């Protein structure tokens, strides 16, 4: 599709949507949000670019296959769970730095992993559909 309005709007809205998704990811562990929903929002941003500029632009922009995002995300989420196990506690037990804060901790890594898995999965499907 070649529409000047869509292309111009996408540049603005696409970037905003991505920022919003990162905000949702960040606030996820104490407020509504989180990795899953953030990835859905981010995917809509990518979908906009796919519609306006075509799947090739997105593929080039990503540099890596979306499948790698899924793999990396799975590994990151599991790694976040393993941190608790190394400390002789049940799998996925939250570990925070510094230990009293609730800012940075394994739940954030877990959520980031979820974000990557969901985003990777949606992009895999989206790009394959657009290219076929």
């Amino acid at each position, binding site marked *: 599709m070649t529409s000047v309005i869509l292309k111009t709007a996408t540049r603005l809205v696409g970037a905003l949507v991505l920022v919003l998704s990162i905000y949702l990811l960040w606030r996820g562990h104490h407020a509504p949000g989180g990795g899953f929903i953030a990835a859905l929002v981010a995917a809509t941003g990518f979908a906009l670019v796919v519609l306006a500029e075509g799947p090739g632009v997105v593929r080039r922009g990503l540099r890596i296959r979306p499948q*790698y995002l*899924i793999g*990396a995300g*799975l*590994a990151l989420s599991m790694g976040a769970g393993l941190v*608790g*196990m190394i400390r002789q506690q*049940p799998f996925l*037990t939250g570990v925070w730095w510094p230990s009293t804060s609730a800012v940075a901790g394994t739940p954030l890594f877990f959520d980031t992993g979820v974000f990557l898995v969901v985003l990777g999965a949606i992009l895999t499907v989206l790009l394959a559909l657009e290219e076929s």
Partner: protein
Amino acid sequence: MSNLLIYPILLPFGTAAASLLLWRKPALQQAVSLAGVIGQLAACIVLFSAVTEDGIQVLQVGNWPAPYGISLVADHLSVLMLMVTGILGTAAAFYARGELPDHLRAKSFHALFHVLLGGLSGAFLTGDLFNLYVWFEVMLMASFGLMTSGQRRAQFRGAVPYVVINLLATLLFLMGLALLYGLTGTLNMAHLHQKILSHEARGLLTAVAFLFMAAFGIKAGMFPLFFWLPASYHTPGIAVSALFAGMLTKVGVYALIRTFSLVFHHDMATTHGVLLVIAGLTMVTGVLGAAAQNAFRRILSFHIISQVGYMLLGLALWTPLALTGTVFYLVHHMIVKANLFLVSGLGRDINGTMDLNRMGGLYQAYPVVAVLFFVPAFSLAGFPPLSGFWAKLLLIQASLQVEHYIVAAIAVAVGLMTVYSMVKIWIEAFWKPLPSSGTGGAAVPYSGWKMAPVCVLAMITLVIGLGAEPVYRLADTAARELMAPQVYVEAVLGGGRP
């Protein structure tokens, strides 16, 4: 707390992640995949021995105490199912290595395969109904991917009804969950058990119970919700269809056993009475459907349905002996059925077809394959002393014990019909000379990757049959745990806190 419970789930997902990151290196992907299944089998064995020695194992994931967080629970039933998952996963992965050129093009094969194994382990281990729903979703996603991984038209024709009907089941499941949560305020199965003991709205609970029965019944392929199964199981690759045949419907049966022993125990006369009628109908329709078929894998698919009927029968009768029979039947059936699907692949390699009219001459040309078919097929039909004989014997004995003579008669009759189907395959594919229209004269070399899993599974069938005592004792312990859920409940809610 015991982190042992997480490994059977963690290892497959780790393997899936690794094989996704190795997208460009198929050989390495393959090696990682085989290492992954062996690792998972080892994890299952370790957990199995922990449970048989020390009793029920519990892990409160994330260190959140029981009704609030998600509990993973391993009792005897769970670990028996896990052991079979490990064995079948390994067998299917090795067989897939043998038939791989077909699948090599679809590079997501290994990742999906391991996600499916992880989903199965999660479903068998979880002590939380909503978590069970999540594992069902994981399995559905992975199995849809695997079912279509050859990208042939017939595969999509089979996969679409599979996905649609399973989404419907998922929807029913979700509705049931919402209503149950509304009624009781919890979805932890142990906690539900306690809440339902003293719950007043028994009629509403029974209605919700039937929602769950329908949802899991679709997954299990029980009457009258089974039609998706024979429409889809004969289309994917052999290794995948063997894993599906062994595991997927049995997760549904497992979920029925779990919920209708631990959760919905308030009105057994109604729920288990309905189950008994359904069990009988499932047995009969499955076996009649099989008699009408004329292709190797389709006959086997219909037999899954009739066999699910037997398992439901044991649950419906609700006596210790009957439940023992159900658990024994599950273990026996999963191994035997997966093996039969694998053997059907060997037959196709030689004859180039699954159509019994065009198959033939296997016994003369490939006696080893004939023996490898004979063991699981006649175990399925219930010939003594193979494993299926003991499974059927236990169930028929249990139904006689509580004087359900009609059901016992149905079980015997369905067993005889199963013999008919197996003999049909035996005569058509193995005994009769190769028809002039068929192929298979040229010698096809045995592939070690394919033969090894078939041989090992046949061996396991023989071992379960000839040495039925240890498996019987395990099944008996599992049945006792199911009949007396207090131990399970205490393990989860009481002493399980770290």
